[in-house]
């Protein structure tokens, strides 16, 4: 409870982890607020169905609050004037000159604050992915502030979990992105770092994942625990194995 997990990918795509966490938390009965900035709802829905969870059913029973970034952005830009009288769009920082993600934070907070009739275990905030906010004009400081506010609200006050995906690259020229990614690394309780293999492309091993448990944050003078596995993604499943022990090799 109250944990901040960072999903970081380098030279590959770590979105399979996002799909996993989404279906994992939904199956566990948690209330999930999913800020999906990169893909459409149907994409996540189709993949979730392969993993055994129906997002539409979860939305209907109120377990899932889905913010479809692409659709919100279109509504914001091409929407009629009358629709503005309702709640302000969570993505209104795109149209404003001040890059303030407060509207987005308010959206997250209202969706995860338990209503009286809710019986879900623990709230969860899932974000895919944070780097898109930078592309849309938010400053790195605004993004970090947003995450900080979310941590206070979700992890400390509501005792929920947060899972966030960022992209990063060792020799990246995108300094703002690296700033956000590194800063979040320092604050995370658990880091799942997905990388492409250093030796190049391989059909059987799609990449490696480094699992870093930030035990050092607990002030018990212990080092972080790092585990490294390699993985291969299949249509409905991801198989993990120890380094060098891919099924193709054995």
């Amino acid at each position, binding site marked *: 409870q109250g944990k901040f997990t960072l999903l970081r990918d380098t*030279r*590959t*795509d770590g*979105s*399979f982890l996002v*799909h996993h966490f989404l279906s994992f938390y939904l199956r566990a009965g948690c209330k999930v607020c999913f800020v999906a900035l*990169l*893909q*459409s709802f*149907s*994409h996540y829905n*189709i*993949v979730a169905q*392969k993993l055994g969870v129906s997002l539409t059913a979860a939305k209907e029973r109120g377990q899932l609050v889905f913010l479809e970034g*692409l*659709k919100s*952005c*279109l509504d*914001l*830009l*091409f929407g009629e004037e009358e629709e503005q009288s309702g709640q302000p769009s969570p993505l209104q920082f*795109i*149209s*404003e*000159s001040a890059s303030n993600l407060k509207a987005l934070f308010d959206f997250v907070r209202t969706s995860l604050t338990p209503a009286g009739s809710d019986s879900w275990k623990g709230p969860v905030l899932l974000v895919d992915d944070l*780097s*898109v906010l*930078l*592309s*849309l*004009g938010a400053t790195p400081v605004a993004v970090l502030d947003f995450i900080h506010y979310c941590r206070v609200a979700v992890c400390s006050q509501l005792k929920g979990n947060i899972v966030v995906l960022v*992209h990063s*690259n060792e020799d*990246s*020229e*995108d*300094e*703002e*992105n690296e700033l956000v990614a590194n800063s979040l690394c320092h604050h995370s309780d658990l880091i799942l770092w997905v*990388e*492409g*293999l*250093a*030796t*190049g*492309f391989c*059909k059987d091993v*799609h*990449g490696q994942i480094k699992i870093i448990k930030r035990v050092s944050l607990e002030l018990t003078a212990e080092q972080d625990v790092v585990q490294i596995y390699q993985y291969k*993604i*299949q*249509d*409905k499943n*991801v198989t993990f194995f120890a380094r060098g022990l891919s099924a193709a090799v054995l």
Partner: protein
Amino acid sequence: LVFTEEDIYGLYSNLLFKYFLAEGVVCGHDLFVASAKEHPDNILKELPAPLLGDTYRNELGEEATAVKPEDFQDSMKIAWRYQNLPKMEASPTTSTKFGHYYDVSKTMSPELFQSIKWHSFYLPEELSSQPKMKTCNMNSAYARLLQSIQRIIYQEGFDGSDPQKKQKNILRIGIQSLGSMLWGDDICSSDTPEDIHSLTKFLYVLRGLLRKSLSACIITVPAHLIQNKAIMERVTNLSDMVVGLESFIGSERETNPLYKDYHGLVHVHQIPRLNSLICDVSDTKDLAFRLKRKLFTIERLHLPPDLSDTVSRASKQDLAESAKLLSSGCGAMAIGKKHLDF
């Protein structure tokens, strides 16, 4: 959203652009062409003529899919186009029946245009009108283009907003040379551009429009001119498929014996992973293209056979150096599962 990085002189990316549009015409899709430098009418006149019947079998020693999208506004179903690429088998019998083949030496006849509807966006003509949407700090040319696309999608019912329309069609969108100075964006000319978010915001909104409607889009961008590489990284993140064309014209690779059969390289930086956990990866990542008299082909790059006995040691070493370059290039590119390997 297919994102193409132009080669330096823009010759081959124009070719790909025209192919994309031509395929749209032949398939009966609607087209939307946008350009800032060439009038879409002219672009449409230059589309390659399709090769029908068996004539193309004779033309092909290997399969080739030349895609020349020019300014058609087509939707984003781009991914399958590239899956269409031939498998580099020597025998032409393994040609896939996907798509059509085109003859680049002839232009498409106007009768083929009669059956389709096409829309155009030529920036110098559009500048006189006022944008009605909120520009949200985006470059006004981009804002106008987005508004135009959105209007067409809405009016023609590509987003399903008109239930009366029985026949669903696909809109193919082609945008030429986005990000260049002609669009009013200075990312190609300065290191610290005034507004680095315009292009990425544009792409995000375009992605939203494409996801919401039955459309596919190809964009060509003079990536070699963009000074700020962070923008290219963000753009790659926001696109479904990213392909770069590097032509050998004027570069040292032109005389390299490794590349003597080809006119340039194709770098596939990203392939789409839509609606599934994995994407379709294929075997090799080295692709090169060549422009024959009538066809534009993309093939696997392979070393020419070293047949000559009189090859001197120096040039043999040259070849070995290039081969090493190739494999290291392969290694550097072949990282992660986003890279497409044909």
